[in-house]
């Protein structure tokens, strides 16, 4: 059996982390959690993951700052696929995600099926960052 793909869920809301974790574990992923960008960066530097699922509005370090920091790391860490999750759905929000180097953007609320499908798809993405942005 293939090794499970690892996902780090970065969100300051405990209920949201639990909701996503449950969906992802059911979809066959191994899941870890972080409360904000700073904690996520620490975890990522300690152990790489196959996908980052990142909220935008978080204390200490917001999602865009975190994604930008990830993209500035050395390869292969810098190429970790990123899925942004946010309640904001304006063109400027998509543009900010793109500028930070996100691969995909899902607007909350996100259904179980949608999150599972996108996580699976993005875990197959490689070389993300410079060319990897997929329009929402």
């Amino acid at each position, binding site marked *: 059996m293939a090794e499970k793909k690892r996902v780090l869920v970065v969100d300051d809301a405990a*209920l949201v982390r*639990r909701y996503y*974790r*449950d969906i992802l574990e059911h979809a066959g992923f191994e899941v870890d959690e972080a409360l904000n960008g700073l904690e996520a960066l620490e975890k990522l530097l300690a152990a790489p993951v196959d996908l980052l699922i990142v909220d935008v509005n978080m204390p200490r370090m917001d999602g865009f700052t975190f994604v930008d920091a990830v993209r500035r790391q050395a390869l292969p860490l810098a190429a970790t696929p990123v899925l942004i999750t946010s309640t904001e759905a304006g063109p400027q929000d998509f543009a900010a995600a793109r500028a930070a180097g996100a691969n995909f953007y899902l607007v909350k609320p*996100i*259904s179980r099926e949608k999150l599972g499908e996108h996580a699976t798809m993005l875990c197959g993405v490689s070389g993300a960052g410079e060319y990897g942005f997929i329009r929402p």
Partner: protein
Amino acid sequence: MPVFAALTEEEYRRLCDYLYRRTGMVFTETKRYYVERRVVERMTATGSGSFPSYFARLRGNMEGEIERFVNAFTVNETYFYREDHQLQCLSRDLLDDRLRASGRGRSIRIWSVPCSTGEEPYSIAMWLLENWPLVDSCDIEIVGSDIDTAVLELARAGLYGRRALMRLSPYLVEKYFTPQGPETWKILDDLRESVRFTRVNIVEPGETAPHGRFDVIFCRNVLIYFDDASRRVAAENLYANLLPGGYICLGHTESMSRISPLFDVRRFADAIVYQRPPGDAHG
């Protein structure tokens, strides 16, 4: 067999008067056995040789005796998913209504008071995860409050026995708890982190007001312990803790209409709840 305090009529009356003034709870002669049991517990625990010496200790609040005494009195029997038709009402109607009407964006504040050992606020969190499709798109704050600091400590610890879990399916128990021994389960950290616990006496406006205003308050099976005057004070306090248009859920045997005229009664598919009129922004 424990030796009962055998309070005189006068002693019992004075104790009940005192308890009423401190907490708003009313105990009549029919509760005498129950009250004496608690008094004996506390007399034994404090090494008081007689009721007068214990009562002096209580009134002098020696070593925080008032709080310990009140703690011994609070009824703390509850379980997960108790009266879940109200939780159904929450996820089917109340929250969506609040999001439409509140004008406060995607913020939802829910208060469970009294929360006892945490079963109710944690049930709310679990229920929303299982049943509310907007759970990841709202800023949900769940606060659990109780007058009894001992139960709040237990609530924060999040450890439960089989009885507390009796209404939950094995699926939910496995999903949200980890076994901690043959008869103990611990609720997941994500759920523990999603509820904030505070102490409050709901007949003290100075204690309820700092909690701020909520979209939904669960206040179940506590007003039945109060007399009419305390019930009214509690209802007015809770009213002030509701956002305009916010809802309060009482226990199924309780009726707000008999306590206070402030609230509108609302009938939804799953439950009857009480609402602070949407137009009343003051108070």
